[in-house]
Structures are given as structure tokens and as C-alpha cells.
């Protein structure tokens, strides 16, 4: 089982980069194709938020790169983890003029971030050992 850390897709669209840029970086554009509602403060460090009404889901984003009209990057939380979990993935859109349109690439990275507690492997091994022994003790006590 290979753990996917990176997702990459490229699509060719028949519209100039300026138009694609507007769809990616304005509240009006984002709410038309991505979420149902969107707000965005388009500058590095700015906040953006998207809401999907049907799913009842809101994504809080942080704008990271704004290089109009070629690179737009943001981070957002990992779906399923608690809202305040510090782990986030980074999404970067790259727009290149191609064939009278735009070649749009999206790369999302960071799914396989090392959780904090893996850094304490030695300590963990110790507590796991205890857990096993206490488990055996529990079986013993329960049998009594």
C-alpha cells in the first residue's frame, strides 16, 4: 500500500489565463464551480472560506501564493481531521498559456505528514509495552 502524499492533475481549457485566474481567485468564481459560497482575501496570508451547503461542510483556507495570473497557492485542513488540527495540505494552481487557452495544473501535497506522536517512537514503544502487559493483566483479572 503506497501512501499518496501528492495529487497532480492537468487540464487544458479553451480560455485565457486571465479568465481562469478570476474563476480560481475571486469569491464569485469560486462559488460558481467549487463551493456554494466563498469569501477570499487575495493576498499571501489572507483568509478564504468555502462552504458546501449540501454536505454542510466549510473549508477554511489560507492564501499562500498570489502571482497573477500564473500561480495561486493555499493551504487547507485535511478532511476528516478536527478543525483545529495543525496538519494542512498545500494546493497550488499553475496556469500556463497553451494553444490559445490555458494549461491548468493543480498539485495538492502533504497528505502523508508525520504526526507529532511518531516522533516519540521510543516513548510510544514503551507505553505500548505497558498497554500489552496491562491487557494481559486485565485478561488474568477478568478470568478470576
Amino acid at each position, binding site marked *: 500500500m503506497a501512501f499518496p502524499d501528492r495529487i497532480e492533475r492537468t487540464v487544458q481549457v479553451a480560455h485565457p489565463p486571465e479568465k*481562469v485566474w478570476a474563476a480560481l481567485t475571486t469569491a464569485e468564481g469560486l462559488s460558481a*464551480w467549487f463551493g456554494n459560497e466563498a469569501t477570499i482575501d487575495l493576498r499571501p496570508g489572507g483568509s478564504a472560506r468555502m462552504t458546501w451547503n449540501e454536505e454542510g461542510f466549510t473549508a477554511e483556507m489560507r492564501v499562500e501564493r498570489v502571482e497573477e495570473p500564473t500561480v495561486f497557492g493555499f493551504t487547507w485542513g485535511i*478532511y476528516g481531521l478536527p478543525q483545529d488540527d495543525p496538519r494542512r495540505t498545500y494546493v497550488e494552481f499553475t496556469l500556463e498559456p497553451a494553444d490559445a487557452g490555458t494549461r491548468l495544473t493543480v498539485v495538492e501535497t502533504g497528505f*502523508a*505528514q508525520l504526526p507529532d506522536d*511518531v516522533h516519540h517512537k521510543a516513548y510510544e514503544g514503551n507505553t505500548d509495552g505497558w498497554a500489552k502487559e496491562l*491487557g494481559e493483566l*486485565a485478561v488474568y483479572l*477478568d478470568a478470576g
Partner: protein
Amino acid sequence: MPDDIEAIAEQVFAALADPTRRAILAALASRGPATATELAVDLPITRQAIAKHLALLAAAGLVTAEPGERRRVRYRLRSAPMQVAQQFLAALARDWDSALGALTDHLDRGA
């Protein structure tokens, strides 16, 4: 890619593959820390079978054992390994194909 993540994800999915262990984890998630005896009241399996599954879940790091009342061992859910598995699932669930399809449709409509 660190081996640790692979190992953790494998243990979590192996633990979740068994319906009894899923029921034990669900019970610990909803009611909080409990002893094998307490879990046996809620679940349709013997205390001995529950204790065996709890030992396996503890070895996988999904529950931790702590001293409870009257020298009983109480088990507490530990969510960190599940968050690793969650990250794996999140990567699979991130549906850029349909999002980019919607973007293309949006741009074409506005043309």
C-alpha cells in the same frame, strides 16, 4: 515516505477490518473509557473475547490501558493512529477530477 506511517495505517485498517473491534472502538468513542467488563454489558460478546480484542487494539496503539477502580484496567480510545489512516483516506477522497470538470463547465458556460 517514512515506514512509520505505512505501519500505522496498516495496523489501523487491520484493526478496523474486524466488526467486533469496530464495535469496541465505537463503544469507547461514544461512552468514554471503559473496562472489559463494562464493555461486555453493552456488546453481544463475552468479556474474555473483548479482553482479547482490547489487547490487540492496545498493541496497535488504538487504545491505551490505564488503572481503573478496584484494580480493573480501563481502556481509553487513542485517536492519533486513526488520524494517520484518515489522512490516507483524505488523499483518496480529494476529488480534483470532478472539481476540475466543474471548473471547465463553468468557464465554458461563461464563454
